[in-house]
């Protein structure tokens, strides 16, 4: 983009220039190809033809949706090119929540790391902690105790339930089903109450740490789980009556924002979005981590890849997560909740009072941290939004040399321009909602 005239100073200072959607008249064939042809495999020639066919500039209008818009789930900004009510092109502009967490991660020790990463996906914080911890454990080459593995599974599945319930709420809100919003929040609060009982916090738990978990399950945790497991099924049946059997709901979602499996794979889209196309892929089953290979559950797939399938899959996944939680309840082994490796784990509190060495050891671990051997590793888990990966490069010190998180929302957002093409503005809201992006994770 070349500036042809001098902008006023205040505009110049706040201008974001080329990040924006350029008007259709000046879009080069290359960018046209990116918007139209990336997934559909248009040849450059076809893209040029499409460019000639396009409507003239005075019939279209470019509008901003967001960053302050209730349906954009935070600070997502979309530039939409509209012809009447129809979306011709769309470009998501992100970065409004960027706080340099990957850089911060390089300044924190491995023990402090989970406090940082837990703030990425704030609707499912335990998953980022888990991915980070699994990667550090791989670099350290340690195995956490059985009980820690099962506690991690129990807690992440509870978190998946709460995350999907949040989706139910926001999806309802975006589509005007305000009662659904209230129900979703209400049930999520119950799930969060359990997480709070165990971790002490409703969100940003810092519970899963390299070497195990921060604390053992408290007394009476079984009652907490059972209360939730008893409470949810009738409530979910209520959702089913309220939503699935409601013609307006179906009309708003069915056939809207459809995507195929090929397009998902080409764009790197994972999670419920990929499964909604009928592609049978779930890391928990296909590349099991923790002890998911010892658990019976179904991978729910859709068939049309539209907004309704994405909604229905998440509703069904709550049921599957409840199945997993029930099995965790039955199979929860006894034992230690963190590894008894003196290098990684601080001494128990009682020892500090009686032993000088334990005190020094405790102090060293919390100030200097533990050293991780040189190397690099990537570990991926299935978060409620898709494949969540963590790539850590260690230089042998007690802080990561490079910590990168592969955020599913960041990648899934790439599908928006494709999903929105030719849809109505009102459907755009449904589409953003069905992608379920968490902007904290997108911008990191």
């Amino acid at each position, binding site marked *: 983009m070349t500036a042809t005239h001098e902008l006023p100073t205040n505009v110049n*200072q706040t*201008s*974001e*220039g*080329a*990040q924006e959607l350029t008007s259709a008249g000046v879009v080069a064939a*290359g*960018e046209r*190809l*990116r918007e139209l042809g*990336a*997934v559909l495999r248009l040849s450059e020639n076809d893209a040029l033809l499409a460019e000639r066919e396009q409507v003239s500039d005075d019939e279209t209008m470019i509008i901003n949706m967001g960053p302050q818009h209730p349906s954009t789930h935070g600070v997502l900004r979309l530039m939409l090119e509209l012809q009447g009510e129809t979306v011709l092109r769309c470009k998501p502009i*992100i*970065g409004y929540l*960027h706080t*340099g967490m*990957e*850089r911060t991660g390089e*300044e924190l020790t491995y023990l402090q790391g989970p406090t940082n990463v837990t703030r990425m996906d704030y609707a499912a914080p335990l998953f980022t902690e888990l991915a980070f911890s699994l990667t550090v454990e*791989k*670099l350290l*080459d340690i195995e956490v105790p059985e009980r820690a593995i099962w506690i991690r599974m129990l807690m992440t599945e509870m978190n998946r339930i709460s995350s999907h319930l949040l989706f139910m709420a926001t999806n309802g809100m975006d589509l005007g089903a305000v009662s659904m919003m209230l129900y979703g929040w209400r049930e999520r609060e119950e799930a969060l109450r359990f997480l709070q009982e165990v971790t002490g916090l409703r969100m940003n738990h810092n519970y899963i740490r390299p070497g195990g978990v921060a604390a053992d399950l408290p007394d009476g945790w079984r009652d907490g789980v059972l209360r939730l497991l008893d409470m949810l099924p009738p409530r979910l049946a209520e959702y089913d009556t309220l939503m699935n059997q409601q013609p307006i709901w179906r009309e708003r979602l069915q056939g809207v924002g459809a995507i195929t499996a090929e397009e998902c*794979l*080409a*764009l*790197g*889209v*994972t999670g419920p979005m990929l499964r909604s196309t009928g*592609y049978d*892929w779930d890391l928990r089953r*296909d*590349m099991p981590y923790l002890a998911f290979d010892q658990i019976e559950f179904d991978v729910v797939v859709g068939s049309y890849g539209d907004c309704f399938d994405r909604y229905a899959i998440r509703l069904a996944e709550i049921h599957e997560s409840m199945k997993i939680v029930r099995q965790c309840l039955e199979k929860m082994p006894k034992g230690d909740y963190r590894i008894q490796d003196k290098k990684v784990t601080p001494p128990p509190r009682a020892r500090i009072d009686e032993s000088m060495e334990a005190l020094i050891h405790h102090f060293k671990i919390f100030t200097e941290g533990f050293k991780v051997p*040189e*190397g*690099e*590793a*990537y570990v*991926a888990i299935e978060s409620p939004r898709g*494949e969540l*990966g963590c*790539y850590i*490069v260690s*230089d042998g010190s007690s802080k990561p*040399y*490079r910590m*990168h998180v*592969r955020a599913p929302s*960041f*990648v899934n*957002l*790439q599908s928006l321009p494709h999903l929105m093409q030719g849809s109505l503005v009102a459907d755009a809201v449904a589409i953003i909602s069905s992608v379920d992006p968490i902007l904290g994770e997108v*911008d*990191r």
Partner: protein
Amino acid sequence: MTDVDAQDGEVDTPTEIAPETLFGTLLTRSHEQLVLHPTREEYAGLLATLQADGYHSIIDLCGVDYLTNFSRELPPGITPERFEVVVNLINHREHARLRLRVQIPESDPVLPTAFGLYAGSEAMERETFDMFGIVFDGHPDLTRILMPEDWIGHPLRKDYDIGRIPVQFKGAPANR
């Protein structure tokens, strides 16, 4: 995968251990994960081969700045450079993952884009450009993605001074 097994069989000769290769590229293992080390010239061709072999999805692409850590282990024949681009690919059919590590020299931080083969690399390459200043040749829209357009510098570079960032809103006085 058969390629690896064949190589494993040949490594019997104790005098000179031939470096492992997969798809004609040097292969190492890091914690049981397969890592390929293509050169910049091999990179585009290797991606095409891998895609034809079933690695249909790009999972991740990120940069690493090795400015202060040149001692890392690399297979013989690969010169360590300042930057590295790390690409994660997945093969859904064989449930396999591959990681590519490409060395990028500081003097000429350019890599051909993967966009033509993997449309999903679009945002990831923009992020890597934004954070490290690595240019992806042929990328249709290589602009900053997370930082503001007029930002100076690439924040994840090791020589980027994190201590002294001027206040973003230029009218406001700095608090130092």
